[in-house]
């Protein structure tokens, strides 16, 4: 589904974060990207989302070269993603409203995205309900808790029925029960609808719980991707077995204690 070929990227005059970097992600896979802050996790996500252009190299998603945000890619950021002046409903509907604004032009919105107003409203209601915030639909973001805001951001992405979900530390500021619930939701979408996702985190246990494949990035230049196959993924909350903890230790070693 995703092919990253010979990617290089740097911010301005700073030393490059990626150089000759290759990666390939298959459809339906669950990926986690982990590494110390400043290692380029978020940058990689922005590159995949089409929000930043590589200095050289190419990124293909579903065989198409990425030069701008792709309509079927959903992106959830840690915070600041919601419009403060719009209600929960209008925030969750924003993506669909933008699609309506442009029409199905294949550039800003998928060609097959023709959807009437009523259907769009219904779809947004469905996701708000699934995320347990339908009763908050007329509230403004300032009236919500962090968890409720993050649910709104997730509902906004899912309402666009993405085939690829990019999540940038989406759960790191949430309390444990909320985090586990949302992790289960994302896993569920992966199991049942083959939703491909790439989740960026700095939390080792979260990485082992969510990533079938864990990409480890390092501070400085990343050239050869270090990927760990993880068979312990899919276990959220509850008692974690020895295998799970061993896997965490393995990643901790890989990271070289660089995290904390």
């Amino acid at each position, binding site marked *: 589904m995703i092919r990253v070929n010979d990617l290089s990227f740097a911010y301005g005059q700073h030393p490059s974060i990626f150089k000759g970097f290759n990666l390939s992600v298959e459809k339906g896979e669950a990926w986690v990207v982990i590494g110390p802050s400043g290692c380029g996790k978020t940058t990689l996500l*922005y590159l995949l989302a089409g929000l930043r252009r590589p200095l050289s190299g190419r990124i293909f998603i579903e065989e198409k070269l990425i030069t701008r945000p792709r309509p079927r890619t959903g992106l959830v950021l840690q915070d600041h993603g919601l*419009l403060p002046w*719009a209600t929960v409903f209008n925030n969750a509907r924003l993506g669909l409203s*933008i699609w309506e604004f442009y029409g199905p032009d294949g550039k800003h919105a998928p060609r097959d995205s023709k959807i009437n107003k009523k259907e769009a409203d219904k779809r947004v209601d469905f996701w708000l309900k699934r995320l347990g915030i339908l009763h908050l639909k007329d509230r403004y973001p300032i*009236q919500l808790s962090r968890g409720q805001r993050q649910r709104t951001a997730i509902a906004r992405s899912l309402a666009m029925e993405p085939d690829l979900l990019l999540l940038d530390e989406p759960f790191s500021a949430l309390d444990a029960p909320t985090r586990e619930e949302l992790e289960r939701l994302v896993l569920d979408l992966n199991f049942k609808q083959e939703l491909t996702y790439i989740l960026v985190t700095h939390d080792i246990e979260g990485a082992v719980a969510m990533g079938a494949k864990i990409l480890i990035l390092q501070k400085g230049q990343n050239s050869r991707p270090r990927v760990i196959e993880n068979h312990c993924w899919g276990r959220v909350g509850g008692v974690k077995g020895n295998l799970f903890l061993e896997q965490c230790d393995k990643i901790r070693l890989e990271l070289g204690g660089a995290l904390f």
Partner: protein
Amino acid sequence: MLLVGWEVLALALNQPILPTPVQVLKAFFESIFGHLGLHLLASSARVVAAILAAVATAVPAGLGLGQLPALNRIFSPLIAVIYPIPKIVFLPVIYVMMGITDFSKVFLIAIIIFFQILVVVRDEAANLHPELILSVRSLGAGRLALFRYVYLPASLPAVLTALRVSVGTAVAVLFIAEQSLTTWGLGYYIVVETYQVLRYEEMYAGIVAMSLLGLVLYLIIHALEAKVTRHLDQGVEGMG
């Protein structure tokens, strides 16, 4: 209260320069649907045209400056110099350069409002979170949709506040600009048609009309402001 005080003062003074409110209101209602009404209409048209022209140019310019730091670096010293100058001093320059037309009067008022709006929109756009812009772009928004769904709603409250603050100055400048080189407008009516020929009751009727113009504009802007800042009035609740 105001009217009673005015009435008492007018009766005590018993001079033509201070007619009683009853006389003034009579004069007002006699001509507001006729002669005075036309003057009011001319003044309103000039202010509204100036407001629209200022908003239509200052909002995009402010957004551009706010989003492009390189551009802002070039223009911000210039704006800093021009911003505090009372624009009324440009009146003769504008007349000479643009001719004695309605356009030049509207232009003068428009530049007053223009700079007020330009500065607040620029600051508002510069303060938008980059993550917010990125996340909306990730939903497929190009320049147009960003303008429609982010920049415009983000800057609208500030635009209206700037308008509300500058509408008083705008009406004051209008008053001065209308005193000469036109035969329509409340400035002309108050100074030339009534004050200079000692028709004090009509003069006060003109002042009432001018006050109404300012007040109505203020109230309209205030109401729009209340509408677009609803999200700021909400109490913070449901945290946890």
